[in-house]
């Protein structure tokens, strides 16, 4: 595809358009307070999207992230209720997330199961475990100094701490993905797993690691989520895996793997978040927001395909790839 037509660039442009439109039409949109709200609302989705980007680039997917987030939140709640110190609870919750990721990864790499099926299963399993751990209870009253870490802005800026953490992690993931050998391996695995394996890349080990990272990040996001809302519940983050995947795909990462940039994903996350914020400020109803999200998702996969289908030579490749996809 020609450079000008790169989808991630288009998403970036779209983001600027939305931002510009918002600033002009809604007086409360481009205020520090509102943007700070909008950003921290995106916090967990953005964090998980970082790990998800690496997975999807490597042609895998993790649908269980929201459930891991819920499980982590439930663990935080029940352990806190049981009188453990929050400093002990957080590492336990994060470790549990890593374990969840490990289970996903082992099922995918050892048994060679499709990650889609595996993580649909663990999506139900982990959410179920979250309910088993905490039931329908809601645990609150977390220590204020920790809650403020999840809520307050970095002193002197309108940037909430979780957002600052995201920026830091995004920088790390950006370097990993785009400038290291590990990142190169991910693209090679995603585009042509066999060729990557034949080139001596430890495909299984890398995939396993990615799932562990995904689980860990999701659990960490669960801790942030719990503290930010000051409420630990088993149903926390229900369904946000869809928002994460929508953002990643909207950002131009190909669901078949091997393509996409982190910049695109960040633009995708922001676009979804700001658009939602703008629609809410404009009193556009929830129903329309849902329709807009769905359409964005469809358009984000449809447009690149249509562009490539317009070229006959690429058609052939797309066809054979589409057919290869999903073979066991």
């Amino acid at each position, binding site marked *: 595809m020609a450079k000008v037509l790169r989808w991630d660039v288009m998403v970036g442009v779209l983001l600027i358009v939305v931002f510009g439109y918002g600033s002009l039409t809604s007086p*409360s949109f481009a205020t520090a*307070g*509102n943007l700070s*709200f909008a950003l921290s*609302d995106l916090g967990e989705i953005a964090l998980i999207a970082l790990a998800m980007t*690496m997975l999807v680039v490597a042609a895998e997917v993790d649908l269980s992230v929201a459930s891991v987030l819920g499980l982590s939140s439930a663990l935080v709640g029940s352990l*806190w*209720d049981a*009188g*453990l*110190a*929050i*400093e*002990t609870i*957080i*590492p336990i919750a*994060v470790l549990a997330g*890593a374990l969840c990721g490990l289970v996903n990864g082992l099922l995918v790499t050892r048994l060679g199961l499709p990650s889609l099926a595996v993580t649909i299963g663990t999506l139900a399993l982990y959410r179920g475990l979250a309910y088993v751990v905490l039931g*329908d*209870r*809601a645990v*609150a*009253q*977390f*220590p*204020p100094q*920790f*809650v403020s870490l999840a*809520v307050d802005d970095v002193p002197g800026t309108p940037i909430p701490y979780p957002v600052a953490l995201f920026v830091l*992690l995004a920088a*790390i*993931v950006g*370097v*990993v993905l785009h400038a*290291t050998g*590990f990142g190169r391996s991910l693209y090679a695995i995603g585009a042509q797993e066999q060729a990557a394996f034949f080139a001596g890349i430890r495909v299984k080990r890398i995939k396993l*690691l*990615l799932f*562990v*990272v995904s689980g*860990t*990040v999701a659990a960490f996001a669960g801790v942030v*989520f719990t503290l*930010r*809302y*000051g*409420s630990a*519940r088993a149903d*926390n*983050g*229900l369904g946000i895996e869809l928002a994460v995947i929508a953002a990643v795909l909207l950002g131009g990462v190909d669901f078949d793997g091997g393509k996409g940039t982190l910049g695109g994903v960040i633009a995708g996350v922001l676009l979804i978040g700001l658009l*939602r*914020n703008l629609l*809410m*400020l404009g*009193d556009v*109803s*929830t*129903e329309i927001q*849902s329709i807009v999200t769905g359409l964005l998702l469809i358009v984000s996969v449809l447009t690149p395909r249509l562009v490539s289908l317009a070229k006959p030579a690429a058609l052939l490749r797309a066809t054979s790839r589409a057919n290869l996809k999903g073979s066991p």
Partner: protein
Amino acid sequence: MTPTRLTAVTALLALGVAACGGTTKSSVTSAPAPAPASSSAAAKADPNAPIKQGLKIAFLPKQINNPYETIVDNAGIEAAKEYGGEAKEVGPSDASASSQISYINTLTQQGHDAILIAANDANAVCGPLQQARDKGIKIVSYDSDASPECRDLFINQASSEEVGRSQVKLLAGMIGNKGEIAILSATANATNQNTWIEFMKDELGKPEYKDMKLVKVAYGDDDDQKSFTQTQGLLQAYPNLKGIISPTTVGVSAAARYISGSKYKGKVTLTGLGTPNQMRQFVKDKTVEKFALWNPKDLGYLASYAAAALVSGQITGAEGETFKAGKLGERTIGKQGEVILGPPFTFDAANIDQFDF
């Protein structure tokens, strides 16, 4: 390899925090409670202040597709027209605290005079509500309360104690104070439900109910289909069940529907809180003899007026203050900023056709 590092950074972060010493629940709760309700309460109430014109208020229900909430909110919006204000209803399509919070933030940004909220989670919504109050926005909770320290008023549909106790009395009267009973609730962390259930249990502790035994509290999550299957399960698991109390509009209608089509009809007594329109069919086909509810329209109406009174400075939310709520007349603020709509009303075959909501 850097993702390993990423994991390490995360772990370090967590461990680093761990090194600072333990913060446990007991150390937090034993510490002095956070500052009580904010400064606005210190302001002086002026009962004679006129209601301000052009007030902007917003209703934030648990979720927008809950018909009960829609009735309440629409009545509130109507009420706002009466006193020359402008009201709207916004909200999430799922009953989760986190999506409600996005809306609180948005409403804060839009600069409303008051936000009326039916909280999905009393604690989770607290932080954002505080931030709204810091900007001078009045917070009125209705239907389901938020933590008292982060709202100005709570419009309670009925005294929780009265709801709880009256439900037990209603059922006991129909089953002759005898037999196994169960409760079909909404979600287990719905504040209002749990308060009622506590009072029900307390009431059942009285000697006259010694032959009644509460065997199970089931949760239908305010999901029609789940409530339906939970009812099935209850009746199978407890074959000697004599009565069910379902203090939620979704639960009671689902349970009634199951019982009306099953062999349990006429054997198991069902009561609870439901709207006449939902229950009319089951009262007529004798599945349900009696059930109770307040008028949801009055609830929205009262909440709307209370918000207007707060914003106009007629009241501050302190106990004992009074305000005029249009056609509902004068109301007094009770303990912890609660305003009670009134006792629940009992519907039966004789009176149900007089109501349409």
